[in-house]
């Protein structure tokens, strides 16, 4: 754990390097999506969540769910660098028979709380975990990272209505708002905007931050609940492909995989 934003930014760059390399080596897409949520994951795993990599199943641990499971290369890297499993395992990503699949399966590696991949499941799962915490009298927090495109799914809004009804102030959703989904601008495919206002109207404590500003992320994630028993949502404005100039805000990198030259250039930028 650290509060040093410079150190956190350095960790984030390292995770980005791993994500780019994993995409290239395993010929796996969704790199743009993986890069946009790296700072959020770093802030969660290194500076917010109460977790012990040596005790990944501890009942009182904070839960983190990456609901946008297609960005799992960044999550694998984060978990590995945080100490949940050996860094050498990352090299097996996407290989036949390996435990690191393109979407995480249940129990694949320590630290994966849920198998995600189909969008719109993570918030409801996290809601169930938060509700279990209240029922069992445990004070852990549950964090769910969603994509903006994922907010197309109706089940997200079912959960958005239930969490305030159950007064789940132990639940925090973070929207990785990179303004792209698979085939277009997320504000154009469906009428997503105004996103923060929608969550506010649903009864959530709503914060909007720059999703690449580590200090701002920490402030938002650590903000006191305020005693109003509301769940929290952080609308984190991000850039798809963040950290690699020729990938930033270029939606071709939703599906494209870097070639040798692109890998080299990307890693150089991320040093």
């Amino acid at each position, binding site marked *: 754990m650290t509060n040093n934003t410079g150190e956190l930014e350095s960790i984030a760059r390292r995770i980005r390097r791993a994500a780019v390399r994993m995409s290239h080596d395993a010929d796996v897409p969704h790199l743009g999506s993986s890069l946009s949520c790296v700072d959020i994951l770093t802030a969660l795993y290194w500076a917010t969540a109460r977790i012990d990599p040596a005790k990944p199943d501890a009942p009182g641990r904070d839960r983190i769910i990456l609901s946008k499971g297609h960005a799992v290369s960044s999550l694998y890297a984060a978990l590995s660098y945080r100490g949940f499993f050996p860094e050498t395992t990352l090299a097996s990503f996407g290989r036949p028979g390996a435990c690191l699949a393109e979407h995480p399966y*249940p129990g694949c590696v320590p630290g994966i709380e*849920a198998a995600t991949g189909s969008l719109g499941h993570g918030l*409801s799962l996290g809601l*169930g975990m938060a509700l279990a915490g209240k*029922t*069992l009298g445990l004070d852990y927090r549950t964090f769910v990272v969603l994509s903006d495109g994922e907010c197309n799914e109706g*089940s997200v809004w*079912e*959960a958005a*209505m239930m969490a305030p009804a159950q007064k789940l102030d132990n639940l925090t959703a973070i929207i990785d708002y990179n303004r792209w989904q698979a085939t277009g601008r997320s504000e154009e495919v469906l009428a997503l905007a105004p996103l923060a206002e929608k969550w506010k109207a649903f009864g959530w404590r709503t914060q909007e931050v720059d999703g690449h500003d580590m200090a701002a992320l920490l402030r938002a994630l650590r903000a006191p609940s305020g005693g109003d028993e509301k769940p929290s949502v952080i609308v984190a404005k991000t850039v798809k492909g963040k950290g690699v100039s020729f990938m930033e805000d270029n939606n071709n990198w939703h599906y494209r995989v870097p070639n040798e030259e692109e890998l080299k250039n990307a890693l150089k930028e991320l040093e």
Partner: protein
Amino acid sequence: MRNAFAREITALAEKNEKIVLLSGDIGNKLFDDYKKKVRGRFFNCGVAEANMMSVAAGMAMCGLRPVTYTIASFSTTRCLEQIRIDIAYHNLPVIIVGVGGGLSYAENGASHQSCEDIAFLSALPNMKIICPGDAMEATLALRKALEQDSPVYLRLGKKGEPAVHQAPPDFAIGKAIIVSKGSEVCLLGVGNMLPTAAAAAKALKEHGITAEVVSLHTAKPLDEELLRAAFSRFSIVATIEEHSIMGGVGSAVAQWLAQAPDQKARLLEFATPDRFFHTAGRQQYARDCFGLTADNICGGILRALKPGKN
């Protein structure tokens, strides 16, 4: 069956603090006693079944024993992906209760009928499916389901079903119950069709045919030991279910039979046809339309026994 379920879940939850009951905005009065006795462990999830299933999965991941409750069609087809991924894929001990399986809610139209649920859920790895034959079986099935460490779909009827068992039978998941002995024909009653199977046996008796009546309450996994015995002993084995002929228990038995060599008996399937029920009318009327009556089952079996004579 639903009253028996409500009584039993209340009694069980009073003893087991891990049990939580999630409702899709139904069963309000039904669970009044539960809510009084089991404070803080009833959650009305609203008319949002997809979310309810994932919430149940999340609670199970944290060590609770969630039981979800709503109308069978909304418990299954409405939220199949949440059941598939969040519950079955994670192999979590969530009990999914579908009330009003089959044609119980015939009068409400196909939206409320549930004649495809066994087909959908039996295709899911890790899923067990129990269809209790009467209120007593429903009580026992719930107890046994809570002993599992994997998902169970409990397909209930509605209310007022005739009691088949006079005393609690031995109940084990995957182990059919022989209700009454016979020597020529074996009637495998599934869920709320068990009383009709028993009535069909009575009708056959009037024709001099003795039929064994079996409660085949577990649709998955099948009781293969019982099937082996039945298909070797009898000349006809009939499945009787309030479910589509496509993908129900009859289909599962036929699949088993196709790979079981040298069986003596012929299989007859009594089920709902591969079409929707397009008319007003209550459960009994729908059963009449689809031939799911004791008389029709009796007639079908007699015709199969003595071709051309009935």
